[in-house]
């Protein structure tokens, strides 16, 4: 509880920083559109094109948007926290080019959030797993199911290869959209 409040303060702080300091990024990357759920906002950055393409070809294209998996489905405030965090990370990364290697990796924090999203959509189906997990729960406010869903559902949403190697010709999906708009 305590911890959470502090987090939220920091979060709101960093929302401001993120948007302030990287103001120019905002128009450069239409960051405002972050606040929408439209997957296309994610490909404001070409580095996201692979994920867009793999998602677009996945079983979830019709089921879930990027943010529905990647952002907490719970409260809007949590959403804000997450967006702030990502927005910050992403802008930093874009600007400092910390992602020069092909393989962007999911962060521990982000994958916890996704796990939450999977469960929130598939509650019924995995209710037994949630039951079982209780007996082994190490960290009380850890995920309802410790083991990542995609340890088994390796292909869900992004397939098992997510990089330029899978979608070498997907640079410019965004451009396609822009022209088709």
């Amino acid at each position, binding site marked *: 509880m305590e911890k959470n409040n502090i987090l939220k303060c920091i979060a709101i702080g960093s929302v401001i920083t993120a948007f302030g300091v990287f103001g120019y990024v905002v128009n450069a990357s239409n960051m405002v559109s972050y606040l929408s759920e439209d997957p296309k906002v994610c490909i404001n950055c070409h580095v996201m094109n692979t994920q867009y393409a793999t998602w677009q070809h996945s079983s979830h294209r019709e089921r879930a948007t990027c943010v529905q998996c990647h952002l907490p489905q719970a409260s809007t405030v949590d959403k804000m926290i997450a967006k702030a965090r990502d927005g910050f990370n992403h802008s930093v990364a874009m600007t400092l080019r910390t992602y020069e290697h092909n393989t962007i990796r999911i962060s521990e924090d982000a994958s916890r959030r996704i796990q939450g999203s999977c469960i929130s959509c598939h509650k*019924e*189906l*995995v*209710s*037994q*797993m949630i*039951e*079982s*997990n209780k*007996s*082994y729960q190490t960290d009380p406010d850890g995920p309802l199911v*410790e*083991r990542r869903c995609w*340890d*088994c*559902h*390796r*292909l869900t949403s992004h397939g*098992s290869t997510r990089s330029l190697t899978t979608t070498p010709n997907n640079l410019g999906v965004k451009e396609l959209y822009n022209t088709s708009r």
Partner: protein
Amino acid sequence: SINKHKVEQQAMNALALNSLADIKKFESRSSEWGKYYPRQYDTYRQTRQSDKIEDVLKKDPALPTMWAGYGFSKDYNGPRGHYYMVEDNINSLRTGAPVDDKTGPMPTACWTCKSADVPRYMNEKSELDFFTGKWARLGDEIVNPVGCADCHDNETMALTITRPYLIRAMDNEGSLPYADATYQDKRSLVCAQCHSEYYFKPTEWTDPEGNEQVAKVVTFPWDNGFTVEAMETYYDDREFKDWTHKISKTPMLKAQHPGYEIYMTGAHGLNNVACVDCHMPYMREGGVKYSSHNVASPLDNMANSCMNCHRGTEKELRETVERKLERKNELNAMATSVISRAHLEAGKAWELGATEDEMAEILTDIRHAQWRWDYSIASHGSFFHAPEETLRILGSAINKGQDARLKLRIVLAKYDAADYVVPDFSTKEKAQKLAGLPYEKLVDDKMKFQNGLRKEWVESGKQKGLYDPKAWENIEFKTSYSK
């Protein structure tokens, strides 16, 4: 349909609640647990479907020669479904034909991995009590096959290890002390209770009546690690032997199914894919996922086991697995042919008067060659679980076996038998004769036991209220020796 799911959901949770109701601790009759967990129980009973007996000795007649003087030369089959484990243990010619609770070749330890009555009994008496005496002593106590109680806590249903020797072994080995085992680890450890290499460690103790006893305690030789080399040194350091080979006089080792140990070296083990992920995959029924308890070949259910994690078609993946099996079969056939001949050639050398000195090095080669061969294939699944480790070890077994034969030729030459040709052992029967095995008699005695002592066990088991009739429904008498 979402609503339908919801309904089933409630039914399901209801059960979950009830489950806190009355299942006795260490209840060894799975039907009692089944009342609360129908899905798991029904699938558990489906292991009955895998009922074929594969006579391995017949398939490769080199084996009776390699095991000459040891139980495995009498009778050895491929594994069947869990449903049959007590039945097969009792039927095997290896367990012989006791006439009372003090006779028969085997110790009580042979029940250890066959029944949910084992934790129950250990809990009522003591572990050392369980491991003391002849196999026949517990004939009316061990009456049900592996069951819920082997792997589950009766109250929480959490996975639990019911075999203390596994916990000791993990702690001695050190890389994963039991206390550090995660949920995911347990999804393999419940299997490792049984699917691991073991030996019987003589242990002195004093029973409640104050009598000195020697228990034969199932022990995993893991102190130096899980590899074939680590266990080899473990046994060598202790000058341990399972038996002395009847023909070559070699102090031999038997490797029993190091399934867990070798799996860890494979692509799946390294990626923390648990036994259960493949052998007990989640099933979807209506709105819930539960674990299939039909522990069998995942190739019969690739959709649920393999295909979640793998792209491509079942057909392609199946072919890949088949190629792995062919590779193993190829080197395995070479190894058994080489090692069986080494035994016979050594026998000839002794016969011609070879000395201990001349033979010492040779026997060590044979001991290690056969140990390695056995370790690499005894778990049956190794060709898939750890194809590379399996092939590596088979390669080294072939090399050591051939080294022994090379040295033997030099000895044989010394006694003017350089061109000695081993006798024909191309069938199970011929091979067992070479091993001096009174096969007919073994079978006759066994049948007497089946119609005598065994029937008494069942009766007494029923009186004690241990016997679970549902665990014995329509079992056909199938063995390698029944005509």
